[in-house]
C-alpha cells in the first residue's frame, strides 16, 4: 500500500492550513472524507494507481491539529477553504469525489467552481432534504456504539468493517482512537448542525460535471431514496445502487464500487 505524503496548504488568506494527503501519479483526483474521518484505505490506494489522489483532512481532524477547526465558522468558510486549496495545489481541473459529509462538500465545491470539476463522484452524499426521508446530524451523533454499527453497515462482520471499527487493543491507543472519533464528529458537525440542508438544492444546478451517484441499497443512515433525488436535481447524473451494502461502500462493496468508479472516471 502506498503511504501518502502530507502537504500543508495555506487557505483563507493564511488564516487556516489544510493538511492534504497526497499519493499516486496521474491526473488529479480530490477526495473528501466522511464525518467518520480520513482513512487511507484500499479503495483510495487502488485509485492512486491511476490518479494523483489529494485527500484533505477536514480542519481539526488532522493528527495533532485539533484547534484548526476554530478557524472555520460555517459551510461558506469551508467551501472557500477547499476552493483556495485547489489554487494552492495548482489544480486547474480535477476529478472530485466525496463520501457522505464529504459528498455534500464535493457537490457544493462543484457548484461553486463548476469549470474546474471534470467528473464528480458522490458516495451516499448528505445535503438534500425530503420530508418523507428525514435525517439529522443527531442521526449519527446521538448513537451508542452498537447503534452506530446498525446505522452504518449492512454486515457488521465484514472483515473490512471489523478492521475499521475495532478499537486498538492497548488502552492508550484505544483512548486516542475514541477521542479522534468523537472529535471528528464534532468538527464536521460544526458546519452542518443540526440538519445538513443548507441550500445545496438552490446551488446544485450549477454543477456541470457528469456525476456518478453511488448508494448502498441497505443504507440505514441516509435513505437510498436520495440517490434518485440527487439524480433529479443534477444536470448529468447516473446512479449506481450497490446491493448488500450500507452507508460505507468503500468498506462493504469495495470491488464493485472501485470497478464502477474507475470506469466512470476513465470514460
Amino acid at each position: 500500500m502506498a503511504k501518502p505524503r502530507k502537504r500543508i496548504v495555506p487557505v483563507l488568506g493564511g488564516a487556516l492550513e489544510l493538511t492534504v494527503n497526497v499519493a499516486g501519479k496521474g491526473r488529479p483526483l480530490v477526495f473528501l472524507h466522511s464525518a467518520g474521518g480520513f482513512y487511507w484505505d484500499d479503495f483510495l490506494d487502488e485509485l492512486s494507481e491511476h490518479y494523483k489522489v489529494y485527500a484533505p483532512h477536514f480542519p481539526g481532524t488532522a493528527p495533532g491539529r485539533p484547534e484548526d477547526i476554530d478557524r472555520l465558522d460555517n459551510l461558506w468558510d469551508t467551501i472557500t477553504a477547499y476552493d483556495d486549496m485547489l489554487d494552492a495545489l495548482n489544480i486547474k481541473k480535477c476529478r472530485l469525489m466525496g463520501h457522505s459529509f464529504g459528498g455534500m462538500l464535493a457537490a457544493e465545491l462543484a457548484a461553486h467552481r463548476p469549470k474546474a470539476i471534470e467528473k464528480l463522484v458522490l458516495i451516499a452524499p448528505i445535503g438534500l432534504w425530503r420530508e418523507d426521508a428525514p435525517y439529522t446530524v443527531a442521526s449519527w451523533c446521538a448513537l451508542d456504539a452498537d447503534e452506530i454499527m446498525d446505522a452504518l453497515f449492512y454486515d457488521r462482520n465484514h472483515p473490512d468493517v471489523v478492521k475499521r471499527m475495532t478499537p486498538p487493543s492497548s488502552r492508550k491507543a484505544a483512548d486516542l482512537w475514541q477521542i479522534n472519533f468523537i472529535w471528528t464528529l464534532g468538527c464536521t458537525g460544526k458546519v452542518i448542525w443540526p440538519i445538513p440542508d443548507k441550500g445545496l438544492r438552490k446551488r446544485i444546478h450549477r454543477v456541470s460535471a457528469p456525476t456518478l451517484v453511488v448508494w448502498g441499497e441497505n443504507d440505514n443512515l441516509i435513505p437510498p431514496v436520495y440517490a434518485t433525488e440527487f439524480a433529479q436535481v443534477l444536470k448529468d447524473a447516473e446512479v449506481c445502487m450497490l446491493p448488500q451494502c450500507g452507508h460505507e461502500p468503500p468498506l462493504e462493496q469495495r470491488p464493485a464500487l472501485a470497478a464502477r468508479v474507475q470506469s466512470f472516471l476513465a470514460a
Partner: protein
Amino acid sequence: MKIACFHLMPYRDLEDDFEKKYKSAWFTLPFSKVADPRKVSQYYNWTLDELTFAAQSGFDGVCTNEHHQNSYGFMVNPNMMGSVLARATRGTDVAIVQMGETAVFLNPPIRVAEEYAMLDSISEGRLVAGFPVGLGGDFSYSYGMAPMEQRGRFYEAHDLIKKAWTATDTFAWNGKYYQLPMVNIWPQPVQKPHPPIWVPGNASPSTWDFVIKNDYSYCFLTYFGAQGAKHMVNGYWDRVEALGRDRNPYRMGFLVPVGVSDSDAAAERDYGKAIEYFYHKGLHLPEHLLAPPGHMTHASLTHLITKRPFPPFEATQQMGYKEFNKRDYGVFGSAKTVTERLLDIVKTLRVGHLMLLPQFGSLSHEQTMENIDRLSKDVLPHLRGVWEGEGWVDHWWPSACAERKQKAA
C-alpha cells in the same frame, strides 16, 4: 451560610419499569406516551407551593432551573416560575435564585437581560442571576445549535447581557454570534451595577476560570455525591488561590438531595424509593446523549477519556438507597444525622451557598412539605452559623435581602 431550596420539577409518576421500556428519560422520550398533562399541571402548582412554603418556613432563597425535553425536570422557562415566587414572597428577605435561564438557548440572549431585570424589579431587588453554560444535549439536540458553538456563545452572551444591564446609552453589538443594531433594554435591573451572578457547573476547569476571573460565585451541581466531589472542589479552590482570590466560602455553592425523618431507620422507608426513582429514572440518560460530539474542548475531551474523573454514568443505575445515602449522593436520616452530615459536607467542601433538594424523583407533595418543614425547624438553624466567626462577607447575595434581614433583626 445561606441555604436555598432547589427544585427540579420532575415527572413524579413514571411507571415502575419505565427505564426498561425507554432508552432515555431525556431528549427522545415522547411526552404523549408517558405523561399525563393533568398531572403535570398539578406538579407545576405543587412545585410553586413547595418553594413558597420553603420561603415562608425559613429558607434564605428559592432556586429554579432550566432543562428541556425530559422527565427529570422540565421548568423550561425558570423565569416564569421565578416570577410567581417573586410575587408570592413580596416584602420578605428571601432571594429569588434563578439557576437559571440559559442565555445561549435564546436568540437574542438579551431576552435574559430583560427577563432578569423584570424579575429584579418584581422582587424589588432580590434576584440572584444564574448564568449556566447549559447542558450540551439541551443546547444541541433540543435547541439545534452546533455543540462547538456553545462556549463561544456563552461568553459572548454574558458580555452582551452585562453591557445591556449597565449601559447608559443605546449601543450596537457586532459579535461573532449575535448582531444587534440597537441595544437599549427596558427595564434595567434594580440592583446596581447588576444582580449578583452565580454560575452553576459540573467541574469544568474552563468554567472555574471564567467564574474566578469575573469574581462570581460557583455552584457545583454534581450527580456523584459530596464525597466524589471532594477532589474536584479542591481543584476549584486551588484555582481560586492561583488566580489571587480569597477563600471566601461564599464563592462556592453545592447542591444536595436531602430527607429528614424521625430516625435514620425511618428515612429509608420515607425516601428510599424516591431517591432510587431520581437516579434510576430521572438520570436514565445514556452518556452519548449527555454531551454531543464537539460540546467539550479537545483538551476537556482528552482529560475525560484518558483520566476518567467521573464514575461511569450508568453505575448509578446499579446503586440503591443504602449506597446513595452512604456515599452522600443524598443525605437522609434523623434531623440530627442530617445536620451533622451536612455540616461535614459544608466544611469539607467550604460551601457558603448550600442548596437543598427536598423534592426528588417520585417524592409526593405531602412528603415534600413535611420534609421542608422538618428541615426548616430542625436542621437549618444549626447550619446557618457555620462560617460565623471567620468574618466573611457574602458579596454574592442580593443587597435588598441582606438589608431586610438586618432590619428585621
